[in-house]
């Protein structure tokens, strides 16, 4: 070692860190490569809403009545099933460790990861919910209200699923527990969302309920990434 080449005074190095754009690019690449994982919940959603008309048979009034709750239950189940791979792979392959060591903002990473996951899960489920028009005989107006309710309520659903997923990260069979933890917390969203669409269908104003759901989603998005980041850091302690 040549001591003469070394600066004799303290040279504090503050790491620049990764940019939001680079984080977004990385998560987008991961999502694109793992198409099977995000396609599976969508196929599950399609299967459930297709089976309903087949099982109920040719009773248009009953189908119409079941349409909104059936689509919402299918959406809820597919969204909960899809969160299994939210954080576990990043924990297992060391990505999470590298993020922590490099002092990357974990809440920002969580927010980006969940946003991309939301686009590929809830966003697509919302679009597919328009199939309720041919399958359940919903009017386009009702289908539009259903789509809006999924878009507005799903961020809160995702955040609740994500917190359950992060809490069970260090458990061996944690994925089994995620629906058990998340679903009871998500029931109010289901009740409010289907209630809003029902109000619209009966000619009443469902907007206040949608606004309430929207407020819940906004609060979830603002708070939950920090909570999830804390639980992710705790995963190493076990």
């Amino acid at each position, binding site marked *: *070692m*040549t*001591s003469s*080449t*070394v*600066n*004799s*005074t*303290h*040279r*504090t*190095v503050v*790491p*620049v*860190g*990764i*940019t939001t754009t*680079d984080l977004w690019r*990385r998560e987008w*690449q*991961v999502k694109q*490569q*793992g198409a099977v994982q995000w396609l599976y919940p969508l196929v599950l959603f399609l299967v459930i809403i297709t089976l309903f008309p087949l099982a109920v048979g040719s009773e248009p009034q009953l189908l119409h009545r079941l349409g909104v709750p059936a689509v919402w239950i299918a959406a809820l189940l597919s969204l909960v099933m899809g969160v299994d791979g939210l954080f576990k*792979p990043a924990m297992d*392959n*060391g*990505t999470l*460790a*590298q*993020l*922590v*060591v*490099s*002092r*990357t903002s974990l809440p920002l990473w969580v927010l980006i990861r969940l946003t991309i996951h939301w686009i590929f899960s809830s966003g697509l489920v919302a679009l597919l919910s328009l199939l309720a028009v041919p399958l359940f005989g919903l009017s386009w107006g009702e289908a539009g209200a259903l789509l809006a309710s999924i878009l507005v309520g799903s961020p809160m659903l995702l955040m609740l699923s994500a917190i359950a997923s992060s809490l069970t990260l260090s458990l061996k069979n944690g994925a089994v527990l995620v629906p058990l933890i998340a679903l009871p917390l998500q029931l109010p969203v289901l009740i409010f969302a289907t209630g809003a669409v029902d109000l619209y269908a009966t000619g009443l104003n469902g907007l206040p309920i949608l606004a309430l759901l929207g407020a819940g989603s906004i609060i979830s998005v603002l708070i939950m990434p920090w909570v999830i980041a*804390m639980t992710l*850091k*705790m995963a*190493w*302690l076990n």
Partner: protein
Amino acid sequence: MHSNNRSFSESSHSTPTVLALQDITIQRGDFPLCEGVTLSLHSGEICHLVGANGTGKTTLLMQLAGLLPLLEGKVIYQGQPTLPIAPLYVSHQLGIHPSLTVKQNLTFLLNLYGIKPTAQQIENALDWVDLSGFENMGSNQLSAGQTRRVTLARLYLMRVEQTPLWLLDEPFTALDVSMVARLQQRLQDFANSGGAVLMTSHQPVEVANKSLNLSDYLPDYSSDDFLSSDESADYSSNFLSEDENTINTDNDSLHNESLHHDKGTW
């Protein structure tokens, strides 16, 4: 406690202290693995962390990397009581996503430290680890050794300006002889440029100019119930070269500023 025989060898104090540890307790959960660990790591030093299995080498690196809480002791990093520090950390947790390409993974690992590598830099780094031409190959098609080389390739592009401290946990695992030699040369170059390295290895580290033996810091009960002190001493002595000078860590000069870490760190 074994304060009378706690020791590490060191080369020089003429360079600034990058990392100073004082009375660190290495612990997993509630179980203390080592107590009173003290170290002063200066620019230009490559410190070989030795000790028997279970003495907490990996745990210490994880604590310093910010992955595990540091419940007792003081840490000074670059003259400041700062935690978490942001060193380069290479461990068994490679940070390689299997479904992404080699280039995508290496770019991300460098992005974490603010480096935006050019295609040529990526090519050079991969050439350095004998993975030339593997840029667009899926990481899931690589062998364990090759996957490890991808994460090590960033050492080729990392400079002291990005982070002055490298924490390397068994960096030579699954590497062939020529790669180990190249890696040792890279460690030497990094140290010469003003960086500091704290590393574990079960192989001799020829470029190391300092060592810290964690077997000297075992709690008393461990020597009876958990680990034979004779065995651990014999084991660790294999890594200490005969010409290394041994000094008492109690004389080690630590920066006055300090940070006491309590349970609220995480």
